[in-house]
């Protein structure tokens, strides 16, 4: 088996008065590409934020590469939801990607030509080389997402967390992003993605984590992507269309 790069034990987190995550346990192996799925309010974003110390932990532990988040920060990359940023900020795409390197550049030092080149290469990988000098509010949603991806790539992390990177992007961008994720996997990196679309999970991810406030099931897609698990997670009835899981109807209140 591969090395365990992420281990979560008994993680519990709350948001105001409500417990959003309870008793979350799972282990992630190196080189896996995991889709995190669950209904609205299941705590998917909160899970990532809690693991990355962006949200307080009520109880439990999180270990990266056998150590703590703080010590392993440099090996972890994060692509947050696109809506979390002010796109009117006076900066260009290349700049945004370079920001991914600020942690490495360190205090009081300027970004160098080398850093600029690394940023440019990352943009190029995402097909955005032509837009390097474009002010970011002039980019379409899909392009902005690609810039965000490039920013994560440039950090050259060993494990990546992405929060709904494919939400609201055009088909071309979706393909570009999934291509990159496959490349990362091929390079031995680990990727965990909060995915918004249950239907495409089987196509894109080799592992699935079903989450609804706690881990319903986690494992290889082939093993765990079943009607039962989906029903348990989403708490509703599903209809099969042509043998594939086609339409999930779940009640509004969980």
């Amino acid at each position, binding site marked *: 088996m591969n090395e365990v790069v992420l281990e979560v034990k008994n993680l*519990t987190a709350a948001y105001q*008065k409500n*417990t959003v995550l*309870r*008793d979350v346990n799972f282990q992630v192996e190196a080189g896996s590409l995991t889709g995190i799925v669950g209904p609205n309010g299941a705590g998917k974003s909160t899970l990532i934020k809690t693991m990355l110390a962006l949200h307080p932990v*009520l*109880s439990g532990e999180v270990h990266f590469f056998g150590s703590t988040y703080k010590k392993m920060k440099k090996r972890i990359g994060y692509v947050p939801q696109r809506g979390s940023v002010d796109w*009117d900020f006076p900066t260009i795409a290349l700049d945004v990607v370079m920001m991914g390197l600020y942690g490495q550049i360190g205090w009081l030092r300027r970004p160098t030509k080398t850093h600029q080149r690394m940023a440019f290469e990352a943009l190029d990988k995402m097909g955005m080389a032509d837009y390097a000098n474009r002010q970011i*509010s002039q980019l379409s949603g899909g392009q902005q997402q690609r810039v965000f991806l490039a920013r994560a790539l440039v950090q050259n992390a060993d494990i990546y967390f992405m929060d709904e990177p494919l939400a609201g992007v055009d088909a071309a961008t979706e393909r570009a992003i999934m291509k990159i994720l496959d490349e990362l996997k091929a390079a031995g990196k680990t990727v965990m993605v909060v995915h918004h679309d249950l239907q495409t999970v089987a196509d894109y991810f080799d592992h699935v984590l079903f989450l*609804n*406030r*706690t*881990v*319903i099931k986690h494992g290889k897609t082939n093993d765990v992507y079943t009607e039962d698990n989906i*029903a*348990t*997670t989403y*708490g509703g009835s599903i209809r099969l269309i042509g043998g594939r899981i086609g339409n999930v109807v779940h009640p509004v209140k*969980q």
Partner: protein
Amino acid sequence: MWSILLNSNTQWVLLSTAILGIAAGTIGSLAYWKRQSLMSDALAHAALPGVIIAFLLFKVKHLFVLITGAAISAVIGAFFIQGIRSSTRIKEDTAMGMILSIFYGFGIMLLTIANRTSGNQSGLNNFILGQSASMVQSDVWTMSILAILVVSIVVIGFKEWKIYLFDRQFASGLGLPLKGMDVVYTILLVTTIVVGIQAVGVILIAALLIIPAVSARYWTHSFQTMVIISALFGGASGTIGTLISAIGNGWPTGPFIVVLAASFFIISLIFGKEKGILVQYWQMKHHKKQEILQSIPTSVLKKEVQ
């Protein structure tokens, strides 16, 4: 000191600051849920040039004239803020800060000129920090009528205001005239502000519009109750604050009203039934206890979800 209370002029002043406080508390609740708390600060500062211009044009210190000038100036300010926000990438808080300081600066320019050309202007200066005690009976009538008007309009259309605040799109779907309500809201806000400037001053009127409303939140989840409590806090702050400042000779009333309101806030913050610090602390302890009791294996939880 108690003889002050028996003075009928003081009684009128106290009554009007009470009514003003009630109006401020009421409209302040609306502003809070509209997430526009500081707009009152911006508009209050924007009102200053209007006051001075009205004075310079009409050469009288008649309150109604000055109030109208203030209102026009404030509305122009509101218009500019909206305009900047919607036509450029400049955000609302920046637009507010700009209009606030530029209009106020312009107002100070005019005030300096007015003070120079027209002798004793302590009256105009009162608009900066407030001076309820210097109100004359006609002023009291003007203020009270306007304030009562404001409260009435909120009360009459209460259900409509509620929906307008919480779910604009739904309100629009019901056929409520959103643009019209926006205008009415702005007028109510501006009226309360310009009326309140006499008592609390330009710099601090925002306090009377913000603090009672926020304080009320700690006592209830019901919007209606919140508005009522807010109005009460506002009225109490206005009255008691004016009373206290009457002890000193010629002390501005604004600061005392604000400190009163802040005291109510702190009390609400700590002891409030809903979300007060003490209450939350106990709830958290209770919750933690529940968590320990509830560490049931997750297989049971999965059954729940099913």
